[in-house]
């Protein structure tokens, strides 16, 4: 049981100040921008909730948000089950374990723009490995700079390549924490491998899976650099996700008002989802 101690605040103070400087001041600025219009030179005009109204009724915003949600859904549906399957098939002991883990973690350590560039040259038609295989060896017409469907498939594959390991590592950590005695008991009872999974492994993985889904949801919902480097949001607007649109408006066109309004809506979605997951995660802590 934790003891009540208000002096603990002093321990938290440095973190609080640093994060407040980084989060609170920018957030206030964003709120200020979102209700005003500017033509540069720090001259601002009151615009009320106009930006929000425009944004909520604009096709462009709906489309970007829709694409973002679709992308995140696809990613979660592929990466979570795939991650579980791979984690279950991993060796539990032996010299191959660290080798597997290090190799699997490698994609996550590559700077995000390098990931984008890497997949770009990997998929170039005629001279990239994947592009060559698809077009010349398999005879499938594949060019992600022209075909929106190919662009989507490529981005999803890229994200699966980049982040499935996170799910694998989390589930694996959950699995190795199960004592051998559980498996032996299940063997004596003659349990099928499905019921071992359902009643021993899955419950043990529940908490790490929640973390995995939370992290994967958030990071795919915020994805920017990789997609921007790979497709720049194209062809057309087919891969312009919310974050890409936001940076386009904020830094490309320097429309502070609409960009700020969009940031706040984006942030409201993130807040709600974080809260849901956090509540789920800590629900059992109190018992």
């Amino acid at each position, binding site marked *: 049981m*934790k003891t009540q*101690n208000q002096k*603990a605040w002093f321990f938290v103070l440095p973190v609080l100040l640093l994060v407040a400087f980084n989060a609170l001041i*920018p957030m206030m600025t964003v709120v200020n921008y979102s209700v005003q219009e500017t033509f540069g030179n720090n001259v601002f005009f009151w615009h009320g909730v106009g930006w929000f109204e425009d944004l909520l009724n604009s096709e462009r915003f709906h489309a970007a948000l829709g694409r973002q949600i679709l992308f995140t859904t696809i990613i979660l549906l592929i990466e979570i089950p795939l991650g579980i399957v*791979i984690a279950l098939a991993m060796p539990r002991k032996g010299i191959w374990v660290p080798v597997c883990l290090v190799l699997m973690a*490698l994609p996550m350590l590559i700077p995000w723009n390098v990931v984008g560039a890497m997949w770009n040259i990997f998929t170039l038609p005629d001279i990239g490995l994947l592009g060559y295989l698809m077009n010349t060896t398999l005879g499938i017409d594949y060019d992600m700079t022209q075909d929106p469907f190919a662009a989507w498939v490529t981005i999803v594959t890229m994200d699966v*390549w980049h982040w499935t390991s996170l799910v694998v590592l989390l589930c694996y950590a959950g699995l190795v924490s199960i004592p051998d005695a559980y498996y032996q008991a299940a063997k004596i009872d003659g349990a099928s491998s499905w019921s071992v999974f359902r009643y021993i492994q899955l419950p043990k993985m529940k908490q790490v899976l929640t973390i995995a889904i939370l992290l994967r949801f958030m990071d795919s919902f*915020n994805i920017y650099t990789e997609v921007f480097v790979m497709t720049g949001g194209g062809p057309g607007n087919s891969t312009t996700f919310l974050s890409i649109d936001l940076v386009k408006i904020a830094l490309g066109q320097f429309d502070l008002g609409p960009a700020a309004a969009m940031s706040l809506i*984006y942030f409201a979605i993130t807040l709600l989802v974080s809260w849901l997951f956090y509540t789920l995660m800590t629900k059992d802590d109190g018992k």
Partner: protein
Amino acid sequence: MRKRSLIPILYILFLMLPIYWLIAMSFKTTNEILSGFSLFPQTFTWDNYITIFTDPSWYWAYVNSIIYVSLNTVISICVALPAAYAFSRYRFLGDKTLFFWLLTNRMAPAAVFVLPFFQLYSAVGLFDTHIAVALAHCLFNIPLAVWILEGFMSGVPKELDETAYIDGYSFPRFFITIFLPAIKAGVGVAAFFCFMFSWVELLLAKNLTAVYAKPIAAEMTKTASSAGYELGLLAAAGTLTIIPGAIVIYFVRNYIAKGFALGRV
């Protein structure tokens, strides 16, 4: 060999393919790359690497990245350690709310912060310095470090603290000589994650710097687009960015699974 070990092998093969292609490209001449498909470099060349190591704007970009990443890791760990201790040992006013608020900063999209960060760091005169990027990355790295360290610290029994106090240890002495060694795996893992997320982030790093503190990631995007299609050079620069991560991961290889679970298993 059992049939199910095929799954991880296939998966790792899938992971290695694009990386192989990047490395193979980096040893090719631009001519060879553009002239057609070849699985292995036909005319093996070190030229791309030589260009990077002889051009100051290239190798300084690497140094810049390493400077701000290291700064960020040190700052994040130093302020996260006491905070994580407070969260794992005490109940205090607003503790859960505070923890949640920290977490939301890890989850907030960087795109939201780009513009105000640019304004904020210009206003305080830190624009285009290493410390600006290091501080900006604290936004998501401190919450993560607190989260990981709290998980590891909660795994240390509270009796350890109490025994030390009974033995007459002062708090700083206890923390440094007894507690830190007990969670050194956690500190290592947290440092690894701070390094990793600061190293891979581009959007903030690029927009908070111009010349003096320009990170490698920004240098890459510029050269790749302005000088036409220098794919070989791009591939070589990309290959070099994988190396620091690979080195750091080697040190925490035994804790990596637990580390990704944020110490919470």
